[in-house]
């Protein structure tokens, strides 16, 4: 506006140039300059828009496509820093690690063949070809963990070089933990059960009724919800909930115990609250589960989908 008045004044003095100046006034150059003046005057807002849009693009892209990104704790810098700090923290929890290992040893010893009394006399040896190893476990140490956010992730110190791949299940000695979502050469990021998108197939241990386990809505790290259980099931308070074998985990790995039967749910299915057996805030060592038949199974299922 000021420019316009100045131009008019000028044109009064030099009436010869009147038409000429008017043309300049509406030329794109002046408009451009006005725009620049406007932008520099409110530069904070425009810079804010640019940076904010950029940040939100990163946020949305990472969340929807789940593509491996350099900004996470499986990259070399953050992964190594976490590993270094974890070395110090390890000493503080040696006693608990010992206890849990001793417990696990006892449990495993109880399942040994030699602990059972054999009442039939074996007459000949036979090589057993019925069983083929389906699951392989990879031990890993937790180097970064969280339980207090809406979406929680765990970083472990095993990666591609140790055979960890995207989509593998993760368990610990007390129960299921989550599934691998990002892998680098030496580290992997696990989407924990305490994540809004985590859902695993589960069942009641006694009557084998299938359902889906997921995290509770109120973000309590000790509670999960078992959904979509058939109305025919008669669940009891304190009943064990285990994995069903339909998802990434072997059948029968504990998840938790039913702690509340009366929560609101859908009409055709039962929902119940489950007290999780794993204390996610104290995770130290986990096992990554490699399913040897996973590719075969998913390939077959993909074929079936294609035919439909």
């Amino acid at each position, binding site marked *: 506006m000021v420019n316009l008045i100045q131009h008019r004044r000028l044109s009064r003095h030099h009436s010869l140039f009147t038409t000429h100046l008017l043309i300049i006034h509406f030329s794109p150059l002046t408009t451009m300059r006005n725009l620049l003046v406007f932008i520099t005057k409110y530069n*904070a807002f425009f810079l804010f828009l640019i940076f904010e849009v950029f940040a939100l693009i990163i946020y949305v892209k*990472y969340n929807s496509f789940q593509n491996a990104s350099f900004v996470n704790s499986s990259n070399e810098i953050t992964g190594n820093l976490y590993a270094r700090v974890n070395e110090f923290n390890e000493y503080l929890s040696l006693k608990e690690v010992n206890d849990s290992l001793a417990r696990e040893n006892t449990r495993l010893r109880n399942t040994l063949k030699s602990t059972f009394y054999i009442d039939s006399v074996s007459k000949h040896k036979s090589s057993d070809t019925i069983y083929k190893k389906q699951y392989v476990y990879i031990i890993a140490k937790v180097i970064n963990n969280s339980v207090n956010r809406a979406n929680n992730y765990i970083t472990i110190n095993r990666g591609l070089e140790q055979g960890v791949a995207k989509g593998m299940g993760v368990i610990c000695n007390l129960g299921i933990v989550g599934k691998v979502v990002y892998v680098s050469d030496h580290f992997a990021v696990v989407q924990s059960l305490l994540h809004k998108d985590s859902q695993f197939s589960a069942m009641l241990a006694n009557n084998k009724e299938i359902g889906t386990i997921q995290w509770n809505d*109120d973000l309590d790290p000790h509670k999960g919800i078992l959904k979509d259980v058939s109305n025919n099931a008669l669940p009891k308070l304190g009943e064990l909930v285990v994995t069903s074998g339909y998802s990434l985990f072997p059948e029968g790995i504990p998840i938790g115990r039913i702690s509340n039967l009366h929560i609101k749910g859908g009409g055709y299915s039962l929902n119940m609250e489950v007290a999780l057996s794993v204390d996610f805030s104290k995770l130290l060592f986990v096992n990554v589960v490699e399913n040897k038949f996973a590719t075969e199974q998913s390939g077959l299922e993909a074929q079936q989908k294609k035919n439909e």
Partner: protein
Amino acid sequence: MSKGFFVNLVRFVVLVFLQVFLLKNISVYNLSVPYPYILFIFLLPFETPNFLLFVLAFMMGITIDAFYDTPGLHTAACVLLAFVRILFISITVQKDGFDNEPEPTLTNMGFTWFFTYIVVLTLIHHFFLFSLEAFNFSEIQYTIGRVLMSSIFTVFLILISGLLFLRRKERK
């Protein structure tokens, strides 16, 4: 200039370490989670150019995100915080006072101004952060509860750090 640069660099590193290795493991009933790393953006000098301010806020956010595995979340909140900081300062502080008071610290600005500054900006940052994280309006009461409790925790920690450095200056 070089001294200011050095001080801010040290502040950046110390706050990131504190946030990532100590405060990340602390939460009160899962409701109150402190994020005092935003103190870095609070304490940048008044005369920081807007562009540099946004770049630094972006860097701070993306560093925290790298450790928290949430790319973009803290970055978006920090960039918003930088913008609100520019607005707040342009409304409340006169430009000619910048020469004697280079940084918006508790010592320079007095308790009332500093407290208002911290509370308003922390509330906005936390509200944006938690609602972006939840991405869901059905749990809005729970989210607001988390925002309020976390803001109290964060403001508390920031004030403590302010008082700590206030004392040190008086002794000199």
